[in-house]
């Protein structure tokens, strides 16, 4: 009984600590934040599969997946994940769409970063066209560059 009472006191202390920490913390966070607007939250609600960076690195080693860059052709030319093909969501070239739909490798889509929606919108479009195994790499180029991984430049895809 004493232990149960102490556990509840500890929880109370934790609530106070949480409140106090967030009041004086230099990196305090808002009590309520609209995480639901994030692309990742939308992807989860749309049941689109997510892929993490560690897995992308494995896939590249194994050459088991088709990486698709959903950014504009200009952004793609400035630097993209090695081996990725360009399929800008804004233009959606039918030739490339056919290539992605026909590919034996499951496609993984990415765009500029966690706030960019193009990869999700393209994934939904591809799924509507019959490619059910499509997945997205939410971190995109932002996370790729933050890890100082090599990028390929130019329009060749």
């Amino acid at each position, binding site marked *: 009984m004493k232990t149960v009472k102490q556990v509840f006191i*500890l929880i109370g202390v934790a609530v106070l600590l949480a409140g106090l920490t967030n009041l004086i*913390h230099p990196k305090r966070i808002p009590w309520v*934040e609209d*995480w639901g607007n994030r692309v990742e939250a939308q992807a989860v609600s749309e049941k689109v*599969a997510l892929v*993490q960076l560690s897995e992308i690195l494995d896939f590249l080693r194994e050459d088991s997946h088709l990486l698709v860059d959903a950014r504009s052709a200009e952004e793609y030319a400035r630097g993209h994940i090695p081996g990725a093909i360009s399929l800008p969501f804004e233009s959606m070239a039918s030739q490339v769409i056919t290539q992605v739909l026909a590919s034996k490798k499951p496609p993984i889509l990415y765009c500029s970063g966690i706030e960019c929606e193009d990869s999700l919108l393209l994934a939904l479009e591809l799924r509507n066209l019959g490619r059910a195994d499509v997945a997205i790499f939410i*971190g995109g180029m932002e996370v790729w560059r933050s890890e100082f991984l090599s990028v390929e430049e130019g329009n060749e895809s």
Partner: protein
Amino acid sequence: MRKKKPVLDFKKAINIEYPAGYYVALLLGIFFLVVSGQKLVHPHAFATAVFKGHIMPYPLVNIAALLFMSMEFAAAFVIVFMAKWRRAGLCLLIGVLLIYTGCITANLLRDLNTVCGCFGSGARAAAISWTLVARNLGFVVAALFALR
């Protein structure tokens, strides 16, 4: 004259009848003190990890993150520094670990590929797996051993 009682009496803190349990508790306490300390220093990183769990209603993510990191810290603190509160600290730590494990298991069962963020949520953090569930259950077993 009465001798002043030290605030942290380490000699008294060691349970002579069950030293193995004491040392396991101490190791767990120090480990989670460091881990939760890192979370308290970088609250947004842990909030992101909670968000990536996609279990909490989104508006409650930040409050839940603050509460969980504080509970972890409070539990670890009393395990290491307050002998009379050690059992309560271990019970709370077990509760927090079971909640984390439940969330990871739920995401594995619904095939949601996300990262854990349990010990930091860097870009290269590994995706969740059953190994993580086993590791967390290992911590729970260790805490139960210390509680015995």
